[in-house]
């Protein structure tokens, strides 16, 4: 019987991620572990993961401005968001599923949860999409720039404009859910969710405006790369220590 491939992934760099409990974001206080995580070896259960199987059954749905099927375009500032999913060695992560969700141009989510924010829904925008990365790890969405919206964390709290990204990756431990922010947004430094990321890593959450991506008479372009943990067996250290 053929032996399975056991890869060795570098650790989740917890120093680059938010703490579990970040009291400025109030809900984290009771929803965070207080014991230390228990370090375990990576078995086949950890080095495999749902990414490849999820890719097999997922279809591209990359234009959020038209994907409601109403035949009418969504209202708002049309934008292109593109970039690469890379591992920490700089290699593209191909064929992995990116799922995104976001508010509409007014800052309203097409969600059943109640909100006191009287912003209009857009019948031509649901704010969800998905994409499979190409051979170089590249992805590209066309969407509407999401609006900021208030939330109940503290008095007059507002979330900066952001898009939620969920990435499967090829192994269980590479699973990442994060948020992409827009450059120059004055709400960013006031946002405890953004600020939960350690100071040295915060800029990694902000996209760059890229005029090369911008399309004439069509849409402004933003570029944002996402970096995941990597398989340690890089060509450079194979045969090394």
């Amino acid at each position, binding site marked *: 019987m053929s032996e*399975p491939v056991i890869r060795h992934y570098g650790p989740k760099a917890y120093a680059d991620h938010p703490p579990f409990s970040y009291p400025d974001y109030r809900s984290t206080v*009771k929803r965070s572990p207080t014991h230390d995580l228990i*370090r*375990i070896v990576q078995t086949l259960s950890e080095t*495999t993961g749902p990414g490849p*199987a999820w890719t097999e059954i997922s279809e591209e749905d990359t234009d959020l401005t038209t994907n409601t099927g109403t035949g009418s375009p969504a209202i708002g500032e049309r934008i292109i968001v593109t970039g690469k999913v890379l591992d920490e060695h700089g290699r593209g992560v191909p064929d992995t599923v990116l799922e995104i969700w976001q508010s509409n141009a007014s800052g309203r989510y097409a969600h059943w949860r109640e909100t006191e924010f009287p912003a209009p829904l857009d019948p031509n925008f649901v704010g969800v999409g998905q994409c499979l990365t190409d051979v170089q790890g590249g992805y590209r969405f066309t969407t509407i720039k999401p609006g900021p919206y208030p939330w109940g964390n503290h008095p007059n709290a507002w979330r900066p404009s952001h898009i*939620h990204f969920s990435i499967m990756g090829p192994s269980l431990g590479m699973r990442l859910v994060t*948020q992409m922010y827009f450059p120059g947004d004055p709400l960013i430094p006031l946002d405890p969710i953004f600020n939960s990321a350690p100071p*040295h890593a915060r800029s990694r959450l902000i996209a760059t405006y890229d005029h090369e991506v911008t399309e004439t008479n069509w849409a402004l372009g933003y570029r944002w790369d996402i970096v995941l943990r990597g398989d340690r067996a890089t060509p450079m250290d194979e045969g090394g220590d």
Partner: protein
Amino acid sequence: MSQLLGQTPSQTVGPYYTLRLFREGENILVGSGQAGRILIQGRVLDGDRKPIEDAVLEIWQASSAGRYRHPDDTRELALDNGFTGFGRAITDFETGEYTFETIKPGPVPDVEGVFQAPHISLIVQGRGMLNPVFTRIYFSDDDEANRDDLILRAVPADRRSTLIAELVDDEEPRVYRFDVLFQGDDETVFFDF
């Protein structure tokens, strides 16, 4: 060692993740005709033992023969028909309960080639969680295998029970309860790997 790129920080799924991170039926991993179906049910409880009504649970498991549907698992073992091994469930907004309908996974080798006890990998995220937590679900009717399991043995003896789903109904489909608890002496064991 060459300089590594910095990892993109994790951020919470927030309150609106169900727009994309859950679609009807994703918590059912097997067809209704599948023999050996099991239900795994439970709640995710916060530090005050209140149910978290907006959590998303993702599971990853091997087939009943013990094979993962993944290119790295090249062993010549059966994959159940149509079975991806991946499922998602959300906690009910009123009751906090989640349910998975699946099969019990077969044995999978550990790093020494010894079979691990049957287990399912579980990732929990939710509003108010800035990082995912990773844990494992084992089964209370696998006492002997659990005793020898490499990963369970890495867990302090008095915390192992937090990883074991309790068989509460032995009729098919068998029902197991598995709660995920944050904080307190009985906090669920979460892994770093």
